[in-house]
Structures are given as structure tokens and as C-alpha cells.
């Protein structure tokens, strides 16, 4: 992107004066720029502004009247000795744990499935299709089905675990209490891993098979091949894949919203996106919700920058 000095087309007129049709690129870019501003920039700036005012529903009718509180909303959010700050910290830590587990297992499953399906064998197409089903299903339909399966006395999960396998004595709750965390992790992995599978499978196609053959001649076993050939050659894919999955998982809103309902969020499944939604749309404190959103944005920007810095430095050294 950086090294694109436009080559001057042949027959260009002198430097003075504008070329005929100079405006065309701008005109073509114009709509995109305008919509980018409308759809992204203005809402973001509005959101940042909202985080500095006390926008409760008393002032919804006329935002201008909402008192400016400066950093007040941020102070409330970051005051970890109060119950509000503790709530955010708790939600943040839950989300971090959730993200790490979902990311690790989704990538692991995706990689395993992609490697397993790397070489042609009868029925490979069928497996590929089956593995991609969770990704192809409408999100809501899939999660609602999980919600049914997680019901305590009528759900399939407890039926299998307790009634058929007798692994547990008493039927546990999955949608309330501590198990809610594992319920949401399971659903998120189910939704996320096919994407990892798809990306890694595509990446594997670009690795020439003669590299494997050569290493086999040298006596490399499959694990050594995977570690020394597959992984390094998938590096570009992995760099992007992990970043994208991290951002999606950390910001996941649909899964908790559909799985637990719009109001009944168990503390163990209180992901940060839902926590912000809760502050904004259930208690109508938009200023405070915006402050949390800005903090989340800053956190994600920092993580992303560090990640990209580290990755780029390594690839320059390589």
C-alpha cells in the first residue's frame, strides 16, 4: 500500500494545469467516503462525545441539556472499589478467559480438521460440508437450538450426561450460575471453529506437496512435518485469522444475547458487549455505556497494535 507512486501515463500533458478527467477518481471515491463518514465516523465521534455527558433517559429528548460530566463516566467505570467498577472488571476478566479458551480451542479444532482433510480420500467433500454447517446456519437458529439443549430438565445435554451416561448425579443448570460460562464457551467454539477450519484449509492448498515429499525422504514424521512445514507456511494466514477471531470473540454479543435472553444475564456469562448493552439499554445510562465502549475500543486497539508490531518485527527478522 505504501509503495504505489502512480506511474505517469504516457502522453501526459505538462506539469502545469490539470489533466483532463482528473476528477474522475475523486468522484468515484466520493460516495464511499461520504458513507464511511456517515456510517462509521459520525457514530464513533457521537459515541465518544456521549461518554463525556450524563445521558440518562431524562435527557434523551434533548441531548444538549444533558450535563457535561467530563471524565465522570470513566471514573465511575474504573473505580474498582465500587460495585459498578467491580462489575466491569468482573465482566472484563470473564471476557478475557472466554476469548482465550474459545480462540485456542477453535483454532485447534480448525487446524486438526484442516490437516485431516488435507490429502484427498473418498468422502472428503462430505466431511468438508459437514464441518462447515455451523458456519452456514443462521446464528440465531443455531444458538436457540443450543438453548433448548441446555435446558435443565428437558434439554438434550442433561439427558445424555445424566439419564443415559450417568456421569452426574443431579441435573446441573447450564443457563444460570457458574456453568453458564461453559455453556457460552461451548456455543462460541461451535460457531467459531468452522471459520478457522475454512481459512486454514484454504491456506493449506497453497503449500506444494513436493515439500512434504522431500521432507518424507529425509525421514520427517507427520508431526515434524506439521511443525516445520505446515505451521511456518501458514504463518500469513494465521496472523490474520487469530486477530480476526480474537476481535470477533471478544466483541461477541449475539451468543450471550440469544442464549441467555435479553435481560436475564447470569454473572458467569456476563460478556463485556452485553454488559455495555445492559448499561445502555436496560438501565438507560447511555453516557456510562459509551464510556465503557470507548474503554473497550482503546483496549482492543492496544492489543491489536502490540500484536501487529510483534508479528511484523518477527517477519522482518525472518
Amino acid at each position, binding site marked *: 500500500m505504501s509503495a504505489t507512486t502512480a506511474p505517469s501515463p504516457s502522453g501526459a500533458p505538462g506539469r502545469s494545469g*490539470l489533466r483532463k478527467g482528473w*476528477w474522475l477518481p475523486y468522484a468515484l471515491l466520493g460516495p464511499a467516503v461520504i458513507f464511511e463518514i456517515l456510517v462509521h465516523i459520525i457514530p464513533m465521534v457521537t459515541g465518544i462525545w456521549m461518554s463525556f455527558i450524563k445521558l*440518562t*433517559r*431524562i*435527557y*434523551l*429528548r434533548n*441531548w444538549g441539556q444533558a450535563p457535561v460530566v467530563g471524565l465522570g463516566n470513566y471514573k*465511575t467505570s474504573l473505580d474498582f472499589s*465500587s*460495585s*459498578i467498577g467491580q*462489575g466491569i472488571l468482573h465482566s472484563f476478566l470473564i471476557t478475557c478467559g472466554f476469548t482465550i479458551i474459545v480462540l485456542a480451542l477453535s483454532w485447534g479444532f480448525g487446524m486438526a480438521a484442516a490437516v485431516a482433510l488435507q490429502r484427498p480420500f473418498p468422502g472428503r467433500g462430505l466431511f468438508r460440508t459437514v464441518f462447515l454447517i455451523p458456519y452456514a446456519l443462521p446464528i440465531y437458529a443455531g444458538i436457540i437450538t443450543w438453548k433448548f439443549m441446555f*435446558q*435443565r*430438565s428437558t434439554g438434550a445435554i442433561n439427558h445424555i450426561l445424566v439419564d443415559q451416561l450417568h456421569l452426574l448425579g443431579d441435573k*446441573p*443448570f447450564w*443457563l*444460570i*450460575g*457458574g456453568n453458564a460460562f461453559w455453556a457460552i464457551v461451548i456455543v462460541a467454539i461451535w460457531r467459531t471453529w468452522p471459520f478457522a477450519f475454512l481459512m486454514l484449509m484454504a491456506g493449506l492448498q497453497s503449500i506444494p506437496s513436493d515439500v512434504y515429499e522431500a521432507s518424507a525422504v529425509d525421514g520427517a514424521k507427520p508431526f515434524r512435518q506439521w511443525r516445520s512445514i505446515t505451521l511456518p507456511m501458514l504463518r500469513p494466514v494465521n496472523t490474520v485469522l487469530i486477530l480476526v477471531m480474537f476481535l470477533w470473540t471478544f466483541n461477541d454479543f449475539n451468543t450471550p444475547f440469544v442464549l441467555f*435472553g*435479553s*435481560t*436475564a*444475564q*447470569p*454473572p458467569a456469562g456476563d460478556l463485556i458487549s452485553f454488559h455495555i448493552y445492559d448499561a445502555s*439499554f*436496560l*438501565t*438507560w*445510562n447511555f453516557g*456510562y455505556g459509551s464510556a465503557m465502549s470507548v474503554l473497550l475500543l482503546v483496549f482492543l486497539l492496544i492489543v491489536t497494535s502490540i500484536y501487529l508490531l510483534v508479528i511484523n518485527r518477527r517477519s522482518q527478522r525472518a
Partner: protein
Amino acid sequence: MAKKRVMLVGALAAATVAIALSGCSSNSGSSDKNVTLEYWASNQGTSLANDKKVLTPVLNKFTKQTGIKVNLTVIGWNDLQNKINTAISSNQGPDVVNIGNTWGPAFQASGAFVDLSEHADAIGGLDKFATTALNAGSQKGKTDHPASVPLYGLAYGLYYNKALFKAAGITTPPTTWEEFVADAKKLTDPSKGQYGVAIAGASYTENVHFAFLTAAQNGAEFYDGDKPTFTSDAIVSGVQRYLDLIGKDKVVNPDDAQLDNGSDPLQELAQGKAAMVLSQNNADATLLSQGMKEGDYGVTNLPWPADTPAEDQISTFPAGINIAIFSYTQHLDQALKFVKYMTSEDTQATLDKPYKTLPVLKDASPSFTDDADEAKVFTTAYNEQSKVLPQVATEGDFESAVGKAVTNLIADIAQGKNVSASDIKKALSDAQTTVEAAG
């Protein structure tokens, strides 16, 4: 070339302005015949479609009388408050809207709705409404400037399944909390999948209502002026009494901790899986649609502990639905006519029956049920055993914060955890912090 550019920019600007303007063209015609009012109705019937069916003939009659057309949209309870707030912040939306009367104080404080005391004559006078019903929708001290007026009245009562009572040999419904718990224990038999009481344990609105009512029976106040005071002993022990139903008394199916809809427990009652349910009187519509007949179920007031002094013998708050006009409306005169029509004696009598609601007009007699006992229970509760929910601007925050605190406690209990008075106090204190931040 520069000239050409100016022209192009000018043309673009003109087009943009034209598009923007066409979006908000307003018909300023004052003739009633040219006016179409937008009306957002809340979900009162058994489904959104049912509401449409009930309301359409009523609205057609209004159009026939006045020439004003009404465009009806029925909105579910989970979306209604969000949509109203969106309409308020964008100044675009319906002319007339239904609200839960407990939201009244907050909307009144925001100035989003027309002050109806300034147009009292146009809606047939404010004195036609029962005082309890009218005052419930306003902030304390501002009840003479209501921003909404009552449309349907509702009250809590204790519904019971007569067949199950008979099978357990219980002849009269409980009159005190102690009898209520004793009866519930008799009616509980987990091996048959039958429980004494069913609750919507994950519904924060139901939970905050019962926290409020049991605390009120202890003489507790949730607010001192505008200041939230959620952690008094009276409130803690009231909440404890409600939680004990599922914890200590074990008369509630632990599965109920997952129910997040107020009509779920009624299904259990209709199916004979639960003997008693605390619900508002529109439950009749749900029970009938679940295959019960009038006479299969009975109703008594929400019981209080035997030693409760007379002034704390509270069984409900004056619940209900109010109707309001948005301040931004272009059709104030027509909207006022519509409010007058909806709150007229005729329309009220027509709608109370299908919606199973209590009259909100002075001296009107209830018509929602043919069961005289049931009518009496609810009318007495509404008029004599009621205490209004906090009439403060942060009432909505109170409902969500306290309601969710109770929801989480119920979830803990359902998983077998022991919830002590100090756990309840801690949860209520956290809820108070949240409300203070919003206030």
C-alpha cells in the same frame, strides 16, 4: 471548468436537500378527515395478532365517529420501552402510545409527553379517572400534571388450581403468608412433578414486583424522597420471604429459575404442574387460552404474614397501562380526541372484557370476569390493598437493578447455594449503587 464544478456541487447539494426534505414532509392540514394518527399499542391480548383483532373494530368505530384514521402498531413488552426512547430521542414516531404506568414518572420527568392537565377538557376531564389509577403514573408531587392517563387497570392476585386444591383436601384458599406456605408444602410433590407455587424466576420485572410487595408488607420504603434506600432490614426480610419459597420452603420447582416470561408459570398452573401462581388479573386470558375454564381456577389476594398491621396489608400495586401523547405530535387536537375516545365509558367497557382488565374510571364496575368473587378480590386489592411503586424519575432503574439482583439470588438458590440475609443485603446494596449512578 471551475464554473462547471460549482454547478455540479450545487446540483448535488440541491438533490441532497430534496431527499432530506421529502423524508419529513408534514401534513399540516388540520381537517380531521386528512389526519392519520399513529398509535403504538402494548401487547395486552394473548398475542400481537390477537391485539390487532381486538382493537381494529374499536379503532374503526373511532374513525366512523370523527373521520380521523388510526394506524395501529402492536408492540411486545420487551421492545416497547426501547422503541419509545428511540422515538423520543429522534422526535419521530407515533402520536399516541401505551406505556406501563410505572414508567410514567420517568417519562414525565423527561418532558417527552404532553402535559394532559393543560388539555383536561379535551379528554373529558381528569376527574373521570379513579384517583388511585390516575396518580400511579406520575411523579410524587406532580400528580396534578399527568403526562399520561390510565387506560387499563391491573392488580396482582394469587391464582390457584381448584382441582389440585381439592385433591390435597384444601377447602379454602390461604389468607395469611403462613397458611400460603403450609398449603404450598402440602401441594408439593416433586416425584409427580407437582409444586405448590410457580414463579418466573428469571423475569426481572416479576421479581422486582414481588420484592416490592413483600417489602411493603413489612412497612418498607425503597426511597426516601429521591434517595434510594434499598438495604433496610424490612426490605431484606421481605425479599428473604419471597426467596424462601424456592430455598427454605422448597415449594417452587428449581427449574423455574430459568423462566423469564410472566406467562410461563401460568402454563404450569393450567397443566396442573403448579397449584398457585402470583399474577396480574390479565392472567385470565392466558389461562383460558391454555384450556382452563372459568371455575377451574380461583383467585384470592396475595397473602401477608399474620402479624402484619392493617396499614401494611398490601397485596398489589396499582398496575396498569397508561395512554400518552408525544410532545412532538403534529396532530395534538386529533390525538386528544383519540385519548378521550379510548378512555370513554363505552370503549373501556368494550376493551376490559377481552383484555381482562380492571376499570380505571371512577365508579365503574369491573366487567372482565363473570366470577363475582374474582372481581371482588381484584377490585378490593386495587382500591384498598395497594401501594404505588416508587414515583421517582429513576423508577425504571430501580426495577431493572433490584429485579436483576433478585434474579441472580434465585439462580444461586436454585443451584443449591444457601443465600443468607447478608447476601441479600449485599445484592441490594450493589443495586442501589447502580441506581445512584443513574440518578
